């Protein structure tokens, strides 16, 4: 055992040293790896000689203590000249700088009157404050001060080697101050709208850019409030400006953009189920923290994630802490049992944050699970540290990984070491330097080390993967499931394909009605407009479903990861498909079970996004919605809708066509584009149809040479025709990339969006002529999404349009009035799509504490080596890394969409 462990250490160390980005990221802290590489018998200093189960602690970003110089300085020559070379930033500096300056580049779009000369540098003197109330003056001054501080930080950090990180920290600070200022007036709608308008009118461009940066940051945190602030200006400004502004504010930029998506986490072997223990009773009033949701989606890159939520019982205010805890343990335990009974061979990994970690540990004592991961372990209690003789945790036999923050309040690395020596289970410890209980690193740490939280999170994830890979590889032998090849290099294993095929498989299965509640498409291809599913009369808005919350970033990482792999449909896949189908059936059943439960009990939804990514086009529709017992006209659904526009030329190295429309992949034979239509509908999932919705995810391979196959696999020929014609039409009249004035770019942008919309409306329209969600009666936003992917091989002007489009839209306006998707889009373009969707989410009542962060992300992604053209108008060269594709400034507009590529 010990020997095996050592062997494994050696292997993982060697692998990590050679390949991992994260090794680069935290290179200083990885001396452990060096130790293992030295000799087979080399032991790190932190080894536990008496407790072989406790593996040596790993340090992430823990700054080594400076050694005290014993010598007197007088003897040491002083070097006043040599500048210590600054470390190379760990992220793609160029890209980071580019996204960093986004707001500055596009600040002009925020101006209400773009034609008027921008305010002069001494704009402050020109601000006419006559007629301002005291409150207005005060608020304005506060904001001004925040912006000035931000300005100072920008200038002072200019040219610094880790400028993007420093800028990010500064912008976060500025955003915080702006938020405080706005909160000080209680977000008084009139006042903040006045403020926004005034700022936009008076601020000089650099200051306005700083203001936009702050807004962008806040929009990610408090979208509803910011939207409320922007309403007035949006109505006043031209459509173009409003569109661009809403695009700009969509998502805060991250310096680590690119790095993380280029270094994706790999799936865990053995396709384990990851159960996330809740760290407390959840309720709609206090939804899970954003951080936990983010991590949930991060983990979903590794395997299936099943959050196990515990809800407060109705009127459960009287429930004691103990009861609650019991409830949490019970919920997790029953979930484990449930999975065991359905999938005796499926490895189960329990993951929990803080209290949830404790719950997971306790459950692992009671039920067999493969591994436990504790994020932020609450070691210290009021009665001292855990690990007394009577502590049931000492009986743990499940391999467990502890990840704790160096500055955690509930835990201490040294106490943790003591504790670890007492547990019998094999256990590992990762200490994250400068991190708190939730593994968030401090601002100072970010500054001094040039880190971002996203990078740290990824490193933590890497450690988790390392640990779980080791455990899973070993257990696989015991369980005796399929033999697995552990070699990390062999990425294209059949089982990978099989796993990735799940969505496909599920969709295939979906054509066979498996669930009575599911209204399934009759077509064998399974590509059905899902809005029709959503309109199923069995839908009930009241049922609650806890969804896997996922943030855009991570899921995109997952998607890109999978995008890279090409599907190989082999015979071997089929058997896996069967297995997966079985699994899908389980999921479905699970949903039904969930549904049968009274509201307030835990339920889950399986995310399948990562599974479906071999397709070159994809749409993701994700949503978080806290279970809401309220069934009024205002729902608490919080759809997180993500639209990914992913285009990927098949012909790598094909002509990099900076000019519009030309696609690199006109060469026939290969499937050019694939379609995946997927929808989850609010109403549908309520009736337990979620699995069905997933299962009806459709996929079609569209190839230039196989037009007929397109027809068969997509909804209807006529729909395709519509699509093609719409695609071609604007392209012929499209503007040239060279003429890239701001307005024309914007136009192009909206054109392309309209185009997308038209496509979307085209496809779903054919199978079900009434695409307007009929769920309007329940006043639920019914997100339906469909996706059309079209490649036209015959167009004279545009030979092929490798456009991957995805559209997700909601069918209800904030007022609850149903709106046809295509109308919405065709009339409003991207901005409307962008602005109206959050608006929809605003249904929730802020005052009552039901925050509804709705995020819509449009992602356009292209493979770096390929040139992609988004729109026939030629506006959107996808953000590929080739300079050739960067001809257009409009690129950057799509950068908003595709920041994480």
């Amino acid at each position, binding site marked *: 055992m010990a020997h095996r462990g050592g062997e494994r250490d050696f292997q993982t160390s060697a692998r990590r040293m050679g390949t991992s980005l994260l090794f680069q990221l935290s290179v200083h802290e990885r001396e452990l790896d060096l130790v293992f590489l030295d000799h087979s018998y080399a032991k790190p200093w932190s080894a536990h000689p008496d407790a072989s189960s406790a593996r040596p602690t790993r340090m992430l970003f823990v700054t080594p203590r400076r050694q005290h110089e014993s010598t007197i*300085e*007088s003897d040491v*020559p*002083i*070097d*006043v*000249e*040599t*500048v*210590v070379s*600054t470390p190379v930033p760990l992220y793609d500096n160029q890209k980071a700088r580019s996204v960093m300056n986004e707001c500055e580049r596009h600040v002009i779009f925020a101006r209400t009157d773009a034609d008027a000369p921008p305010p002069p*540098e*001494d704009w*402050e003197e020109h601000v006419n404050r006559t007629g301002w109330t005291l409150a207005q003056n005060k608020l304005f001054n506060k904001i001004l001060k925040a912006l*000035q*501080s931000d*300005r*100072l*930080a920008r*200038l*002072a*950090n*200019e*040219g*610094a080697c880790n400028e993007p990180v*420093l800028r990010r920290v*500064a912008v976060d*600070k500025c955003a915080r101050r702006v938020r405080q200022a706005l909160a000080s007036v209680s977000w008084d709608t009139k006042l903040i709208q006045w403020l926004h308008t005034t700022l936009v009118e008076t601020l*000089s461009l*650099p200051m306005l850019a700083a203001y936009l940066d702050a807004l962008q940051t806040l929009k990610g945190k408090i979208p509803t409030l910011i939207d409320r602030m922007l309403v007035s200006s949006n109505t006043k400004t031209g459509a173009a400006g409003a569109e661009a502004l809403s695009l700009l504010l969509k998502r805060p930029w991250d310096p680590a953009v690119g790095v993380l998506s280029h270094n994706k986490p790999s799936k865990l072997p053995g396709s384990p189920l990851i159960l996330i223990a809740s760290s407390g009773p959840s309720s709609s009033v206090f939804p899970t923290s954003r951080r936990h949701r983010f991590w949930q989606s991060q983990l979903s890159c590794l395997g299936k994630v099943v959050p196990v939520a515990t809800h407060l019982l109705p009127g459960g205010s009287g429930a004691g802490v103990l009861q609650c805890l019991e409830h949490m343990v019970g919920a997790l335990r029953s979930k484990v049992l449930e999975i065991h009974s359905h999938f005796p061979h499926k490895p189960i990994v329990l993951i929990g944050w803080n209290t949830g970690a404790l719950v997971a540990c306790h459950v692992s004592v009671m039920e067999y699970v493969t591994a436990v991961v504790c994020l932020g372990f609450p070691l210290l209690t009021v009665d001292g540290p855990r690990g007394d003789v009577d502590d049931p945790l000492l009986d743990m036999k499940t391999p467990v990984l502890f990840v704790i923050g160096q500055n955690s309040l509930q835990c201490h690395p040294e106490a943790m070491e003591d504790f670890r020596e007492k547990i019998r289970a094999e256990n590992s410890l990762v200490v994250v330097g400068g991190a708190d209980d939730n593994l968030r690193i401090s601002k100072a740490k970010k500054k001094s080390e040039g880190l971002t939280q996203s990078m740290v999170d990824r490193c933590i994830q890497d450690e988790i993967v390392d640990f779980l890979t080791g455990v899973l590889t070993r257990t696989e032998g015991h369980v005796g499931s399929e033999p697995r090849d552990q070699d990390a290099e062999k990425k294209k294993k059949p089982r990978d394909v099989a796993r990735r095929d799940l969505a496909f498989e599920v969709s295939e299965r979906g054509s066979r009605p498996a669930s009575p509640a599911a209204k399934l498409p009759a077509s064998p291809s399974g590509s059905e407009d899902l809005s029709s599913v959503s309109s199923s009369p069995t839908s009930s808005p009241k049922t609650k479903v806890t969804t896997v919350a996922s943030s855009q970033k991570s899921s995109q990482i997952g998607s890109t990861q999978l995008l890279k792999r090409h599907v190989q449909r082999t015979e071997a896949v089929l058997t896996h498909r069967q297995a997966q189908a079985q699994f899908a059936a389980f999921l479905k059943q699970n949903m039904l079970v969930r549904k049968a439960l009274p509201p307030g009990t835990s339920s889950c939804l399986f995310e399948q996004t990562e599974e479906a990514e071999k397709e070159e086009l994809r749409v993701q529709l994700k949503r978080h919605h806290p279970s809401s017992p309220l069934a009024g006209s205002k729902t608490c659904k919080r759809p997180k809708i993500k639209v990914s526009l992913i285009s990927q030329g098949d012909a790598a190295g094909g002509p990099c066509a900076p000019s519009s429309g030309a696609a690199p992949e006109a060469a026939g034979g290969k499937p050019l584009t694939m379609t995946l239509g997927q929808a989850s509908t609010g109403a549908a999932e309520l009736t337990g149809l979620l699995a069905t919705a997933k299962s009806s995810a459709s996929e079609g391979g569209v190839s230039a040479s196989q037009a007929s196959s397109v027809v068969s696999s997509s909804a209807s020929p006529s729909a395709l025709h519509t699509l093609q014609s719409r695609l071609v039409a604007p392209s012929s009249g499209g503007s040239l990339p060279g003429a890239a004035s701001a307005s024309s770019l914007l136009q192009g942008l909206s054109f392309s969006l309209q185009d997308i919309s038209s496509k979307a409306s085209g496809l779903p329209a054919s199978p079900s002529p009434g695409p307007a969600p009929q769920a309007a009666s329940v006043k639920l936003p019914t997100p339906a999404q469909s996706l059309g992917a079209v490649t036209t091989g015959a167009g004279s002007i545009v030979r092929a349009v490798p456009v991957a489009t995805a559209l997700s839209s909601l069918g209800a306006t904030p007022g609850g009035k149903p709106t046809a998707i295509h109308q919405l889009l065709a009339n409003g373009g991207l901005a409307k799509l962008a602005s109206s969707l959050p608006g929809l989410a605003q249904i929730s009542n802020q005052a009552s504490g039901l925050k509804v962060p709705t995020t819509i992300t449009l992602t356009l992604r292209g493979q770096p080596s390929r040139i992609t053209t988004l729109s026939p108008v030629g506006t959107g060269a996808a953000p590929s890394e080739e300079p050739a594709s960067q001809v257009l400034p409009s690129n950057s507009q799509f950068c908003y969409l595709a920041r994480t590529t």
Partner: protein
Amino acid sequence: SWRRERKPPSGNAKAEPALPSSANQSKAVSEKPNYALKFTLEGHTEAVSSVKFSPNGEWLASSSADKVIIIWGAYDGKYEKTLKGHNLEISDVAWSSDSSRLVSASDDKTLKLWDVRSGKCLKTLKGHSNYVFCCNFNPPSNLIISGSFDESVKIWEVKTGKCLKTLSAHSDPVSAVHFNCSGSLIVSGSYDGVCRIWDAASGQCLKALVDDDNPPVSFVKFSPNGKYILIATLDNTLKLWDYSRGRCLKTYTGHKNEKYCVFASFSVTGGKWIVSGSEDNLVYIWNLQTKEIVQKLQGHTDVVISAACHPTENIIASAALGNDKTVKLWMSTY
């Protein structure tokens, strides 16, 4: 204030007749400079307050109590131009990194930003409520920092001329301000005896360096690599500090400095020296490591208020107060 007095003008650089130096000699004497007077620059009509070489090595700027700044050729001492605009005496002058701009601090409570090529004043930075005494650019030269008799340090944006931040943490006039080489830190020294290190981006005070008996700090600057700071105090002492550890590493003494804010400098083009003016009309040169005085330059007839080192050549410029009013250029082979 301290740095100046008065006397009538002239306008020419007088070349010294001959150079006594010989290369062999200097090498033989092992690690000692052989600075010799090359040029005496006459032009200011009153006490000179500050001399600075431009970062590109081309020019020398001198500010004076006669309210003007004069630009001289750094190698030949040739008079180039006079920048006029301030209403009162000028205490300090500083170059931008690209050598195209100058900023000057004056008793008229303003700073002025100058375009060197045209000799025009681009901006007047108003905001201090008392004499402005010291100023500097940050390395990217998008910020200006100034210290004043109003006991505050202000950070200005070069582009707009707006004050972005006022640091008020001194309880006496601020005698010197300086950015480190990366621009991330600011050091300020004050008559209250405290040196403070500031985070340039946020304006937060990161550290305060105080000696046992806190004599007034008359000058402070970062070492070229930003690892150390040189602090001059009005007790005839120069100290080299490792500020990250809050420790004094070297102490340089022997000169006289009790009254004026005398500039000091690191000389790194040849041997590693510390160069400072002195109130006994000499320029003192210490060996940085051994702390011994390696040379004293004689020639000025009043307090040497300022000494500056050329960025690439072994050239020292020194300037003296009102009895003298000249700037002198000294050169060495080592």
